[in-house]
């Protein structure tokens, strides 16, 4: 209808952008579906399929090789009658409590110290997180040497003049489990610090201004105001550290080898040992499945909150 105004960009039809035809075109959504196939396969087969497979094995009397002769929950009965398993589970509780507690307490304290506005913050942060870049094997070997009762810390402190100093936990069956916590905290405290620090940095600076105007001492602000505000960070840290504890395998192998005897054994090592070395596949699978149930019990609130957050976020 309206006469087109003289148009700088006016062109004849053959110079227009070719508009692709709409009928047979490949839709990008289909590509997205195809691109998901590898990850989907891994998730379905290698995660969930294999969990079911392991569960099935745990119901059989498999030893060296899987045999599918079902014996009901016999392997679980054997497992719960196994003294080494109970030692490992007890150790998991002790180690979990000390390790998670230590990481949370020291990690939070370090984060607060750094958050007080220090010079060379970057340097301190780098140092605190340095052990994190090393493997559990490396950590275990280092601490094995440091805690070596013959030539390690005990001897070195005695040489400084404290002749009665004793630190031989690594060779004492009643103490060796504590050495795991020491090495573990040393390695992971930096991660906790980083997470707490990120949380502290997210706190509205006006809270600090308000508390200064009100004349509240700094330690009280941390205790009564900041810490409650950080509860989701505490929750995250707790979950992450729990996951590490329950998978803990490398560190025991390198630091104590589960010993002396089985005094510092952990369930993850129990499982691997029975599957790979002891030809007790069924028992190992049962142990693995119990371990998985423990993990799920601890992790599920976290997953629930993650997904809920996700859903809440989409509402806007």
């Amino acid at each position: 209808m309206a006469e087109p105004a003289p148009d700088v960009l006016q062109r004849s039809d053959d110079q227009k952008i070719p508009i692709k035809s709409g009928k047979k075109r490949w839709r990008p959504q289909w590509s997205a579906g195809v691109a998901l196939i590898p990850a989907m396969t891994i998730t379905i087969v290698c995660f969930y399929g294999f969990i079911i497979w392991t569960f099935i094995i745990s119901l059989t009397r498999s030893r060296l090789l899987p045999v599918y002769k079902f014996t009901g929950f016999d392997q679980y009965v054997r497992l719960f009658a196994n003294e080494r398993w109970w030692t490992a589970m007890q150790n998991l509780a002790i180690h979990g409590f000390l390790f998670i507690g230590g990481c949370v307490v020291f990690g939070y304290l370090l984060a607060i110290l750094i958050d007080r506005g220090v010079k060379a913050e970057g340097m301190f942060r780098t140092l605190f997180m340095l052990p994190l870049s090393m493997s559990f094997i490396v950590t275990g070997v280092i601490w094995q040497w440091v805690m070596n009762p013959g030539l390690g810390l005990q001897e070195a402190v005695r040489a400084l003049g404290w002749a009665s100093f004793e630190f031989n936990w690594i060779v004492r069956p009643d103490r060796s489990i504590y050495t795991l916590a020491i090495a573990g905290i040393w390695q992971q405290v930096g991660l906790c610090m980083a997470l707490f620090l990120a949380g502290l940095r997210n706190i509205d600076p006006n809270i600090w201004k308000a508390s200064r105007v009100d004349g509240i001492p700094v330690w009280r602000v941390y205790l009564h105001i900041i810490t409650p505000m950080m509860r989701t960070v505490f929750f995250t840290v707790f979950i992450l550290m729990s996951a590490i504890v329950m998978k803990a395998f490398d560190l025991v192998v390198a630091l104590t080898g589960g010993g002396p005897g089985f005094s510092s054994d952990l369930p993850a090592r129990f499982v691997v040992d029975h599957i790979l070395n002891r030809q007790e596949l069924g028992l190992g699978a049962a142990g693995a499945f119990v371990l998985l149930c423990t993990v799920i019990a601890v992790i599920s609130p976290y997953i629930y909150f993650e997904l809920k957050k996700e859903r809440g976020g989409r509402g806007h």
Partner: protein
Amino acid sequence: MNGVELRDVTKAYAGITVMENINLEISDGDFLVLLGPSGCGKSTLLNMIAGLEPVTGGSIDINGRDVTALEPDERDIAMVFQSYALYPTMSVRKNIGFGLKMAGMPKPDIEERVKEVAELLQITPLLDRKPSQLSGGQQQRVAIGRALVREPAVFLFDEPLSNLDAKLRADMRIELKRLHERLGRTIVYVTHDQIEAMTLATKVVVLDRGSVQQADTPENVYRRPANRFVASFVGAPTMNFVDGTLVREGDQMFFDTGKGKLPLVDVPAQANEMVGRPMTLGARPEHLMFDDAGISARVVLAEPTGPDQYVRLAVAGAEMTARSGPEQAFKPGADIGIVIDGARMSLFDLENGQALLEG
């Protein structure tokens, strides 16, 4: 026909209908503004025209071609976004040329077109910069350039000026208007800003809660709002509304609020039939005229805005805003007489809010 045609377009999310039977005709070369408060569905409508959201029912034609089932790049459209949506990792040159590259155009042709558009928009010196190195106004130009270079049948603008500051917004408005006059292309433009709608549009469509309230020229939308919603949404300060009845005393018409009678002057003849019927009077601030012979109103507050001042008045049991020149002084508590311009006022049905006066 050329232009855009929406027929019975319906949109539902998860079974809940948010838009029902939208019918719109946008003629070739029109500058159509979709105006409404946030959440009225104007952006959804634009996204459906663009093909970014599927329609639940109905069909969309662009230049006589049914595009309802087509992907956005098959529809012969281009879009400019509120956030500009420039590709942050590409230079301005690549940003503008990206659509052509995706369409498989040979490189030298792309170069040439980008150059032309850059000259038209006077952004040639910026071609090798990254979007993060540009000011808001410059980014806006690049975003427009990216749309222009596609030479589409229809340009879609999604609140393109909302992120700019007031001064720049006014400048860009003028530039957009010039650009439209120069290119003569069809534009569909979404905004919640009535000034943009008034200044830019050849046709305004006012939307509320998923339905078209009025589709008309900007002048008519302002002068003859189709219902109370349009009347209150368009115009700042907002229109005054009072409930009451029309009464006639001799030659003089009044609007009786029950607590006082507002005198009306130059009332159109069609209002005669409505005498005695309860309704809502709508009068814009400029429709209140100071007249010593009028009803006595008490000054509550005067707000000078610079060129004008708006005077808040308590009159006939209601509060109304009147416009005045900046010179006159109003003392709070003082009394002043007013009459209402019956030729320009609006009358609305008390029940459904529809306008009662025509033309």
